[in-house]
């Protein structure tokens, strides 16, 4: 039997046709396609055990307890913590983005030093330490020659930093400007109140919110949202622009921020005859006399541009509420006038809402463990803006900016004053505008990479204390421990050997186990200070309210900021996922929209989508016109948080910074500054 060429071809043909009747070619094709998806350089989703750990997130501005889901060692998502009184299961846009932000290309991962040409070069931690030793040894020879600004007013790290500062012959320790400071000025310094103001939102049945957005970015906004959702609370809102609070409000009224106190006093004027048990309040007669005389509803309605019926309706609702609470705040945290806050505190006192269920609470100040540290109240008493505007900052040799970004969030004139400081150090987890202005940048560990604590964020209803444990590996030292090391090198004894021990001591003070706290337990205390000596009215207070606010010329409009937490914070920049939720009607291209009321458009002969130049004494920005019924007349609303100098794809080329055109205004009687608005001129381009 022979097997010739022809037989071979027949065999091959039979084999080829036979193969088609088997899974071989089809399976092989399928497998090859799958194999090509699994080449070694194609990234894989890490696999591992799913588990959850508790932490505290401070990135969004106000701290709250959260749960971080892990797969193996990798954090994957963040969720709210139902057991935490500042979360109730809620989480904010910054928290949702927190894990993605951890991998941001703009993270600061190593100390950086600015060279003579202005370029940033990587240096070691030892080099950073040596630079600081040299600078601080020289600077401490003169009194008050070192300035420290802390962006975190809840952490015990402030004790370590301020203790070192006092040992270095300086008491120039400040919190970054916020409404917490404005409330301190209004309550503790003007009204002679005790403790720190909190809001018992959970137990209130009616909130009258003036100016601020308590459900998006102001005070404990995550807890506020959840408390509102879980309880039967009615909300009314009065402010210069509609926001997240106004959309859930039963009644919303649009009034300029500078007129909010007038509206509130006009409401008091309506209910003046229904007030009970007010005779014992110090200054009540003078106050009622002033309200009767100066805040007649008809007159005020005309002045602030609303109907008298609006004032009467709000008065009626305030009177009908069993547990009302009036909350006033700035549209841009810390940047608004103090008098709206002062007015709200006076009216809350008048309605007997101090330390009452669902009212204002007077929270005791946090304990101080380190002898040389400044107390929380001492720090609140220091006003950064007042200081830098009064002093020659050229005389300050060294400044630290800890997790704050003044070169983005403060008006240009204040930034210029800070620029004049000799040597500037920025401590930040992410490269910000302030980092680029500083001579030395120190990486601050990200929230999962560090041990940190949190005492009573502003707006909490009662004193609370939480601890965030170190949840993922971090090669860099914690900043408080770095400063303890720095103190040791400077031969300064701060009275503590590690930040962990400071937190342990504080835990003992609260009678809480450290191990429970790092696992997510929140200590909470419903003990309040009794403010015996509150005086709601005197000559000084009257003068504060008699001062004129921003006066507009006929060709001018008032600039108002639109704040949305989804855009991020001054410290985080625009968040990675937020690029998907910043809509076209917020940022059509590299320019933003200027929101203008239709009547104002008509007055200035403007049409929608026209490009305009907005000029103030501070600067200019360009924007497209957007018709918006939800903004007060004679004003323009511009989204805050754009125009970043952070060099990554999430931030570059997106709009302009509205703060660049805001002006620093002064409340003369209080000697306080505010910058939440400015007078602007509009020009078509």
């Amino acid at each position, binding site marked *: 039997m022979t097997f010739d060429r*022809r037989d*071979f071809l027949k*065999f091959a043909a*039979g084999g080829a046709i036979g193969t088609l*009747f088997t899974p*071989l070619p089809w*399976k092989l094709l399928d*497998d090859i396609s799958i194999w090509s998806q699994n080449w070694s350089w194609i990234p894989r989703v890490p696999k591992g055990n799913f588990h959850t750990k508790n932490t505290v997130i401070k990135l969004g501005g106000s701290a709250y307890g959260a749960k971080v889901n892990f797969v193996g060692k990798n954090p994957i998502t963040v969720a709210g913590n139902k057991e935490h009184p500042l979360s109730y299961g809620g989480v904010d846009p910054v928290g949702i983005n927190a894990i993605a932000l951890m991998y941001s290309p703009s993270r600061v991962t190593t100390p950086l030093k600015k060279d003579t040409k202005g370029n940033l070069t990587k240096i070691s931690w030892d080099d950073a330490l040596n630079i600081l030793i040299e600078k601080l040894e020289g600077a401490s020879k003169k009194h008050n020659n070192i300035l420290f600004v802390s962006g975190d007013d809840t952490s015990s790290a402030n004790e370590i930093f301020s203790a070192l500062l006092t040992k270095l012959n300086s008491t120039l320790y400040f919190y970054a400007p916020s409404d917490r400071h404005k409330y301190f000025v209004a309550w503790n310094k003007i009204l002679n109140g005790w403790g720190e103001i909190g809001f018992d939102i959970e137990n209130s049945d009616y909130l009258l919110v003036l100016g601020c957005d308590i459900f998006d970015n102001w005070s404990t906004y995550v807890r506020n949202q959840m408390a509102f959702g879980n309880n039967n609370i009615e909300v009314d809102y009065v402010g210069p622009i509609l926001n997240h609070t106004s959309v859930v409000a039963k009644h919303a009224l649009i009034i300029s921020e500078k007129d909010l106190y007038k509206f509130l006093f006009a409401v008091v004027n309506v209910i003046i005859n229904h007030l009970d048990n007010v005779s014992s309040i110090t200054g009540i007669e003078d106050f009622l006399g002033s309200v009767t005389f100066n805040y007649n509803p008809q007159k005020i309605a005309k002045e602030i541009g609303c109907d008298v019926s609006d004032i009467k309706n709000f008065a009626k609702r305030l009177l009908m509420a069993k547990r009302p609470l009036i909350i006033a705040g700035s549209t841009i945290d810390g940047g608004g006038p103090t008098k709206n806050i002062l007015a709200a505190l006076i009216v809350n006192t008048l309605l007997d809402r101090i330390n009452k269920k669902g009212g204002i609470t007077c929270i005791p100040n946090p304990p101080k463990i380190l002898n040389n540290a400044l107390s929380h109240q001492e720090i609140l008493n220091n006003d950064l803006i007042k200081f830098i505007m009064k002093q020659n900052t050229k005389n300050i040799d060294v400044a630290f900016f800890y997790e704050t970004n003044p070169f983005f969030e403060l008006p240009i004139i204040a930034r210029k004053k800070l620029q004049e400081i000799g040597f500037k150090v920025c401590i930040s987890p992410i490269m910000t505008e302030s980092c680029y202005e500083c001579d030395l940048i120190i990486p601050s560990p990200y929230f999962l990479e560090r041990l940190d604590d949190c005492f009573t964020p502003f707006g909490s209803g009662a004193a609370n204390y939480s601890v965030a444990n170190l949840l993922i590996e971090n090669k860099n030292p914690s900043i408080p421990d770095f400063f303890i090391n720095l103190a040791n090198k400077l031969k300064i004894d701060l009275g503590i050997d590690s930040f962990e021990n400071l937190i342990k001591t504080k835990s003992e003070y609260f009678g809480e186990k450290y191990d429970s706290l790092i696992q997510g337990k929140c200590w909470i205390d419903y003990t309040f200070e009794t403010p015996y000596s509150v005086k709601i009215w005197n000559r000084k207070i009257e003068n504060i309210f008699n001062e004129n606010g921003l006066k507009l010329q006929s060709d001018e409009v008032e600039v108002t900021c639109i704040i949305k937490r989804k855009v991020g914070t001054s410290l985080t920049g625009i968040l990675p996922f937020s690029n998907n939720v910043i809509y076209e009607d917020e940022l059509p291209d590299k320019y933003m929209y200027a929101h203008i009321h239709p009547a104002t458009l008509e007055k200035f002969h403007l049409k929608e989508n026209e490009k305009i130049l907005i000029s103030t004494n501070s600067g200019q920005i360009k924007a497209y016109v957007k018709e918006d019924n939800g903004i007060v007349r004679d004003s323009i609303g511009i989204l805050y948080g754009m125009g970043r100098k952070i060099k990554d794809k999430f931030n570059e080329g997106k709009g302009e910074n509205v703060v660049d055109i805001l002006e620093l205004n002064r409340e003369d009687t209080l000697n306080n500054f505010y910058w939440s608005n400015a007078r602007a001129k509009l020009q078509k381009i």
Partner: protein
Amino acid sequence: MKQGSSSFKPFLFGFITALIIGWWIFPNIIFSKQEQPFNFSHKAHLNQVGDCSACHYFREDGSFSGIPDVESCASCHYDTITGIPDEKIFVKEYVKKNKEVPWKIYQKQPDNVYFSHIAHQRFPCTTCHPDVGKSNHMPIYRENKLTGYSSYTMKMYKCERCHAQNHVSNACYVCHK
């Protein structure tokens, strides 16, 4: 006639050879047979706990817990209970060393497939998974040498067929996010 018959035989031989290779030799070459790290009796555990969901449960947020971790197993097996060799391996090698068991997953899906167990909870587990609950032994794990996936892995056409039969959308984004 003889010439024609002899000319057909090589073709037939090639055809049958191809069938044998394609249906029997190829599947045995492409899949490797692998043992699990140790034997686990689903039957014995099902008798103890009563239901699959005692160990394979939905979390509070609706996500599926999958295979229990060592910490969960150690709540009963911190020390050996039965003295069975496989249990001894588990306690000695994994519980005491706090090491996760590298189970070979019969139904592993690619990273780009989003499969929600809770959306499919009305179907019995055995619709998709081997019926291991009645067995004292784990099935042999057959891994495709080319792709790295188990032979049990559900292919996309099966997902699509079931979706079509149950009038569920077969749009890409339903499974691929």
